């Protein structure tokens, strides 16, 4: 067990080194969500329940987490092509640690991005409820670990074929975002869309993030958010570790 912990720490700290050294890369990676924020926010109608930004920002935060973590397999794919993945497979590092260490690392850039978004919108019509934001960050961390692990599994399954990784990642990305109600509310949508939305674990993560960012603590919504994120994390780690064990 302690071998697993040591190995995981080794893998995670290696993955984090480029993040500490080039923090600007973390900012560039969130250009897309920031553009959405800049373009959509002025278009949002005033809402009865409060400022539109208050509703929209948590969605953008969840979107940033999903995008960042789902791109991360590309880094592994690069290492598969260069030979450094192979080098690690021959080292005594355990296969599960090679996956888990990488997935855990996803939390760090995600938290940096959440901090940036919150800092950017707080001067505008967005009320900062710090305790809620911190708990939401925990839920999103769990979610990022799961999505990151799935992205690594996809990279391993693609065996270094870029096109396969990007086609699948892009095909899944926007339907996931839209049915989770990130950009537009899903309420009042056709029945089939509502069903898809209910089956999408990200829906619950987004709902919980919205509630917590607003400073509200509805127990059922928060717990469902935690459960949704935990399901993604568990699924990601199981699938990811399996893929890593098969890797050669």
């Amino acid at each position, binding site marked *: 067990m302690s071998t697993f912990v040591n*190995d995981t720490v*080794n893998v995670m*700290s*290696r993955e984090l*080194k*480029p993040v500490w*050294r080039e923090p600007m890369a973390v900012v560039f990676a969130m250009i897309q969500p920031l553009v959405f924020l800049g373009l959509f926010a002025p278009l949002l109608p005033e809402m009865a329940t409060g400022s539109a930004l208050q509703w929209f920002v948590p969605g953008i935060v969840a979107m940033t987490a999903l995008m960042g973590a789902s791109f991360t397999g590309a*880094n592994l794919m*690069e*290492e598969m*092509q*260069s*030979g*450094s993945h*192979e*080098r*690690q*497979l*021959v*080292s*005594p*590092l355990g296969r599960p640690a090679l996956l888990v260490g990488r997935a855990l690392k996803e939390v760090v850039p995600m938290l940096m991005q959440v901090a940036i978004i919150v800092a950017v919108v707080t001067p505008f019509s967005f009320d900062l409820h710090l305790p809620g934001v911190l708990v939401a960050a925990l839920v999103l961390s769990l979610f990022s670990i799961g999505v990151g692990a799935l992205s690594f599994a996809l990279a391993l399954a693609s065996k270094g074929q870029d096109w396969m990784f990007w086609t699948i990642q892009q095909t899944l990305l926007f339907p996931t975002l839209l049915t989770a109600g990130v950009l537009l509310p899903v309420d009042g949508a056709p029945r089939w869309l509502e069903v898809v939305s209910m089956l999408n674990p990200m829906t619950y993560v987004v709902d919980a993030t919205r509630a917590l960012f607003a400073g509200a603590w509805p127990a059922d919504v928060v717990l469902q958010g935690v459960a949704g994120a935990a399901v993604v994390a568990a699924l990601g780690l199981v699938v990811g570790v399996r893929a890593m064990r098969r890797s*050669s």
Partner: protein
Amino acid sequence: MTHTTQTGPAIVTRGLTRHFTSHKQTVEAVQGLDLEIGQGELVAFLGPNGAGKSTTLRMLTTLIPPTSGTASVAGHDVVSGQRDVRRAIGFVGQGNGAGHRQLGRDELISQGRAHGLSRADARHRAAELVEDLDLDAVADRKVSTLSGGQRRRLDIAMGLVHLPRVLFLDEPSTGLDPQNRINLQELIQRLHAESGSTVVLTTHYLEEADALAGRVIVVDHGRMIADDTAARLKSRLGDLVRLGFDSATEAARAAARLSRVPDARVDVTVASVDLRVKDGSTLVGGLLADLAADGVPPTRVEVARPTLDDVFLDLTGRSLRETQQSPTDEADTDSARTESEVAA
């Protein structure tokens, strides 16, 4: 530090076989390899592109399981004892072991940590290797900014971090300039002498196999076709002395005279004569004087050491060119590379 804990051979393979199936075609990359390598041996696998060198190393380093047969490294089975094998070995693959987004020194330290070194020991060892491989100027740069040869040296350093009992190097000298090739040879020999490690490497060059390894295993189409010392392989072949003349008549006269050289093979092509003879480089002075005295002074002289191509011709009766054209060979695209490497 010496490795005294294990007795018995460092590597044993029995009927080691690996097939690949892609696009409904089966490639028999390694076929029934029976091999025994003792502790502390320095062995080179010599063979053309696609011969199965990397596949053999990938099986011995636990990266891929054999299709059939068995192999053990440092006393552990490569399938059932993967973890123990990995702890005992170092592997420098054909690609780049260091991540391109990382700093060279960080990669060395993290590799040391992966092998159970303490933080301080890993740092210390990294510093030693940076010096040994002349990486001082580049070790603290991002790996992607290193030149091909610098990256290769970093890869080699990574394989040596934990002073492995068995070290595998897949074409270690690829991309190194002549000076660094010599440095690498010295480094490997020093490691071998100091730690008693067993070293297995692959190469396309008979010269390199000779300079580095006591024992050379020649492979072709997944099979071992020779297992001997480089010196014996070379002396069996002899050097090639190529003499050019002004005319075909002169060449024919010279050939007649040269055919009296003991144990030599003489071939005439138009105005040039090829003489294949042991120790040709030392004999050539006398031969030239002889021919001049006979009134047929050569206008051009070349002496060449035997190459992989010559070994092949000798062992299989066909040259690498013919090998590459045979219909059973899948690696068509590699043929151009083989020829230029062999010519080099």
